[in-house]
């Protein structure tokens, strides 16, 4: 297959998803979890099933700043609210009064300053990872261009991942927590994992990539050699993560979803974005030199 000749298709696809991601981020923004904003999360099981909408209305009569009531796939209910221990008691008492038997199965509460600190640290971790990988790829391939395009593909993946969570947050109330940051960082490394292997094949075709006459042919052969591997490897990760997504509990469900989206994007961007971008850049550079 001639990936390089038809690279404009992948540029259009990537461009579309990037714009969609940025628009969703601007329009809806991410929904930060209590890990970042502070507040509480209470998970309870009830003896009888109730409508979560109804539960929300019942609880909002109390003097508690309620933010969300959700029913989980396991049939328990997650109540999110501001404040801590005092409000938890109020809510538990109210549910017990209106719906008799109630059992607390999980309670998480984070102070507001604690949350802001985590956000700052998470951003520091993301930036440090990007520079660490940029430095390593540049060093391994002895060429800054390889490093830059690996990182660009990585940023592309992460932006679309963030955008998809902006949409998930808006339509399904999914929030972004500390584990999401972990998934984003893992996406960074998984994305570059495939890119490095593809670059490695490009390099093996010729040790002097920048002096090669026909870079398009060289790059295209590398892509054809690696595409089966990249896709097959993605399958194995997709199998494992889909199993977690479908069967894992509420805590890791969206974490697995983030990892899944990240893995798929990582595979796509290595073949369809990083190398085509590298070729385009080389062409521009050579034309200028002439």
């Amino acid at each position, binding site marked *: 297959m001639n990936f390089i000749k038809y690279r404009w298709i992948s540029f259009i696809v990537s461009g579309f998803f990037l714009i969609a991601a940025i628009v969703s981020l601007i329009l809806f923004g991410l929904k930060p979890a209590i890990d970042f904003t502070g507040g509480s999360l209470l998970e309870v099981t009830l003896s009888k099933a109730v409508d979560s909408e109804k539960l929300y209305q019942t609880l909002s009569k109390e003097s508690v700043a309620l933010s969300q009531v959700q029913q989980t796939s396991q049939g328990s209910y997650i109540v999110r609210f501001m404040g801590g*221990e005092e409000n938890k008691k109020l809510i538990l008492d109210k549910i017990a009064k209106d719906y008799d038997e109630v059992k607390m199965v*999980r309670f998480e509460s984070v102070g507001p300053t604690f949350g802001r600190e985590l956000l700052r*640290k998470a951003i520091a*971790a993301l930036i440090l990872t990007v520079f*660490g*990988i940029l430095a390593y790829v540049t060093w391994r391939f002895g060429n800054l261009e390889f490093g830059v395009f690996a990182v660009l593909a990585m940023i592309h993946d992460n932006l679309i991942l963030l955008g998809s969570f902006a949409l998930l947050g808006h339509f399904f109330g999914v929030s972004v927590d500390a584990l999401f940051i*972990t998934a984003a960082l893992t996406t960074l490394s998984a994305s570059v994992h495939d890119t*490095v292997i593809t670059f490695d094949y490009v390099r093996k075709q010729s040790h002097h990539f920048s002096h090669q006459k026909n870079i398009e042919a060289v790059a295209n052969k590398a892509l054809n050699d690696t595409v089966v591997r990249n896709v097959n490897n993605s399958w194995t990760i997709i199998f494992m993560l889909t199993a977690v997504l479908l*069967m894992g509990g509420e805590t890791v469900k969206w974490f697995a979803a983030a990892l899944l989206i990240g893995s798929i994007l990582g595979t796509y961007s290595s073949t369809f974005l990083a190398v085509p971008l590298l070729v385009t850049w080389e062409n521009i550079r050579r034309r200028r030199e002439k």
Partner: protein
Amino acid sequence: MKKTKKLLFLIIAITFLSLYINLPNQIKLDFSLFGKVVNYQFNISHPTFSLAGLEIPTYYPLRRGLDLAGGSHLVFQAETKDFSVEEREKAAESLKENISRRVDMYGVSESIVQVSENKENLRLIVELPGIEETQEAIDLIGQTALLDFRRQIDEATPSAGFEPSGLTGADLKGAGVDFDPNTGQPEVTLQFTSQGKDKFAQITEEVSGQILAIFLDNIPLSFPRVQEPIRNGQAVIKGDFDLDQAKKLSAQLNAGVLPVSIKLVEQRTVEATLGNRAVKTSVRAGLIGLAAVAIFMIGYYGYWGFFAIASLLIYGLITFSLYRFIPVTLTLPGIAGFILSVGMAVDANILIFERLKEELAAGQAYAVARELAFGRAWDSIRDANVCTIIAVFILFNPFDWQFLPTAGMVRGFALTLGLGVLISLFTGIVVTRTLMRIFTKNK
């Protein structure tokens, strides 16, 4: 060939050792098959060996984090902005001793108290397995330390108890550890403030020869007897304690000198049944994912796939025995990290098999192609895994850099993913290669 055989024996040995470490002490079989009831119980002994004076146990329990086992994770914080470096360290040590003492009083087994300090604040992480009603524990742990000295109500009848002497932690300047110049025994020194000096002199004069007990949070800490009136504000508690005990007592006394108020900043409580269900669903998810990977590998690569699956199973066994051995406390994100690493562990084999196909297509003989494939795939595998290790390093944050996340969940994930990457380098390359060298043709 000789080297390959040796490697095979090594791999078999490691596999059986890992299998043994992972076996529980008891396996119960209780089910019915075609109307027949099967009910067996196997006991597997895990003896402790003693070698050159070292005790080597062969049973290592798998540690489960609070999100799987149930319990409370509490984080308290104290403002220490105005403290000097020395004061901060002292406060951290005292706080840890005092909180550990309160937690011990609460009677929770395997509880953990950790302190992390930076310029701005001091943070105390308390883990209470099995505790779900947290309000009481929070109140108990969160109270400000209260130290006071009490005198006997009636010397003749010790059961009468003690009454406040009016001397408190506020009168104390600090406590420390010293050694008796004559006997070399460790002892605890007390230094009073100028105000406290006079109070202490007066009280010791009154109770000379009697016990002046020291209470922390209304619980007795020490019962020293006043030998003679002390007027210089410097007291020494002698006793039959070793250095650690002396240090502990001094830290507890300092907790009353530098009363730091702490407040709860984070709390995560999980009920045990929710944790148990999470373990079950994760195990099921892992097995189904693994089956899908196995079907895919064998379907796509034929009998080569069997070698990949065999090394993947060995990978799982080694990984779990390391979790037990190190030990790694398994959390829900940690399990997710492991499951992800299984997906990544197959990667090395896919890369090698694709190379092998290429070499065969180029007309190489099978045995030559096999060796070339393993050799050439190594570079790519190494480079790709280094990038994962970079991310793992930042997430795990081994040097506790304060500008990076230090959350336990994030670390649990990073640890299992990192271990997975390292072990998969061994199983994906060495194990698969050895198996293929032995069990496929060499022409």
